[in-house]
Each structure stands twice: as structure tokens, then as C-alpha cells.
């Protein structure tokens, strides 16, 4: 049985146990990297750099983790802040949404028989055209299965803002995917 996040965190805090922290990284790296890949529009290298910074920041600030939310939610919050800082540093010169044409579809789940591959590809492209905030909200609530309240915690914004992001994201997705709408 895998030790729980709480046990691992306690070991890191008590004796600076690097193996325990490694286990935490192993357990959460996929979610954090996936989230950041979605945010960066499929820029794997940048996403992994940000993910690494996220975990190092998590290690440094582990004492501040109060357990009010899941550890993964806390990490996703750090990841989102890292992404936002990087975007601000780049002063929006990097067009995050232009780099998404190929990467996302490579890493989407194998579509079930009921969903056409083409639709999956178009959906990935449509997701990538969303604003980072909308994309974050959609990813957190649908891919990560967070509640709206948890997503608001990760994004550091009011609940109403998350709902607005989700609403706009769905409208945009509907517009981008209108050719798939049933006749």
C-alpha cells in the first residue's frame, strides 16, 4: 500500500526525508505536468520546467501546507501561480495559444469507440484556443475532477469568476466545435 500524502509530508517535515518527497513527486507529477502542458498549449519543455519549479517551491513551502485542501490541489495552485508569473515575465509576448496545433492531441486518452478520433483532435485544438484562465478552469473541473470551489482555490479567484470562466469556455468550445453539432 502506498503511504498517504499526509504520512509522506510528515516524514519530509520531520527529518527532511528526500525519499518521501520523491514519492510525493512521483504521485503528483502527472497531474501537475498535465495541467501545465494544457496551460502552455502543449509546450512540454516549458511545462516541465514550470512543474519542476512547482515542486521545488512546494518543498520550500511545505510547512505552509495546512491540509485545508488536497495536496494535489495545493500543488496545482502553485503550478498555476508559476505559470501566471512566467506569462507576466514574458509580458504576453509569447502567444501561448498559437503553439497548440499538434501537441495536445498526441497526449489525449485513446478515444472510446463512441467518440470519433477527429472529434477528439478538434476538441484538443478548440481547448487550446481558449484563454489560459478558461483552459485552467475547464482542465481543473473536468480533467482533474475538482469542484468549482476547489478550482477557485487553485486559481486564486472567487467562485463566481470560475463559473464565468467555465461558462465562457463552454460557449467558445461550442462555437469552435459547431460543425460537430447534431443537425
Amino acid at each position, binding site marked *: 500500500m502506498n503511504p498517504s500524502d499526509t504520512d509522506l509530508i510528515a516524514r519530509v517535515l520531520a527529518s527532511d526525508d528526500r525519499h518521501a518527497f520523491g514519492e510525493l513527486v512521483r504521485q503528483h*507529477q*502527472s497531474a501537475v505536468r498535465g495541467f501545465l502542458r494544457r496551460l502552455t498549449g502543449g509546450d512540454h519543455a516549458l511545462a516541465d520546467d514550470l512543474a519542476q519549479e512547482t515542486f521545488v517551491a512546494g518543498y520550500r513551502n511545505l510547512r505552509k501546507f495546512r491540509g485545508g485542501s488536497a495536496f494535489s490541489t495545493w500543488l496545482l495552485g502553485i503550478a498555476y501561480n508559476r505559470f501566471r508569473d512566467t506569462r507576466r515575465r514574458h509580458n504576453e509576448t509569447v502567444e501561448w495559444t498559437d503553439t497548440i496545433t499538434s501537441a495536445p492531441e498526441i497526449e489525449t*486518452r485513446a478515444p472510446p469507440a463512441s467518440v470519433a478520433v477527429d472529434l477528439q483532435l478538434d476538441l484538443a485544438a478548440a481547448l487550446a484556443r481558449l484563454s489560459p484562465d478558461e483552459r485552467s478552469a475547464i482542465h481543473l473541473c473536468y*480533467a482533474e475532477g475538482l469542484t468549482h470551489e476547489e478550482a477557485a482555490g487553485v486559481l486564486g479567484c472567487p467562485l463566481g469568476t470560475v463559473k464565468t470562466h467555465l461558462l465562457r469556455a463552454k460557449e467558445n468550445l461550442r462555437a469552435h466545435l459547431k460543425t460537430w453539432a447534431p443537425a
Partner: protein
Amino acid sequence: MLREAAPMYIDNAGFTAKVLMALPRARRRVETRRLLLLLGSALLGTVITLVLAGNQLVAFGTLVTGHLARWGAVPVPWLGSTFTIATAAAAIAIAAAGWWGWSRAR
């Protein structure tokens, strides 16, 4: 459909190792313990010496102070300022060494 479009599990592929290498240096608990042990030993040694030396130490002290008094009688105009500067330099060096040792031990 949005749930199905979630990124699949991303293989670790050395990511954890890279993160662990990027972590700040491990706290030097061993060095702190060694430093405390060294200081404790020095203090204990001093106390033992003082206790065991007894009268001999007093005789030695008298000898040293006698010599110092004789040297002090020699009129050297710059000796006072040299002594002050040397003392200040030594104090600064000791403080810097202490700070460096303490910051490394954290």
C-alpha cells in the same frame, strides 16, 4: 467528452530525479552537531586545565604578566594603536567565521 480529452498519465521518465536534484541542499544537521561537540570539548578542556593546573597556572600567569609589564615599560609609541587594530581585526575575523559556520550549518 471534456473528461475524455484529459491528458493521459504522463510517464515519470526521470522527472522526479531532476526535481530531487534541484532541491535546496540538505540541512547540515551533522555539521551542527560536530560544531557543538567541538565547542563543548574546548570548553570542557579549558575547565579541566584550570582545575588541574591550580597553583602552577597562577605561577605561569605571574610569569606572563611580569614579562608583559616589562614589555609595557618599553616606550613604543605605536604599540597601543597596533594592539587596538589587531584586536578589532581579530574580533571581526572571529565574528565572520562564526557567521559563516552558522549559516553553513543551517
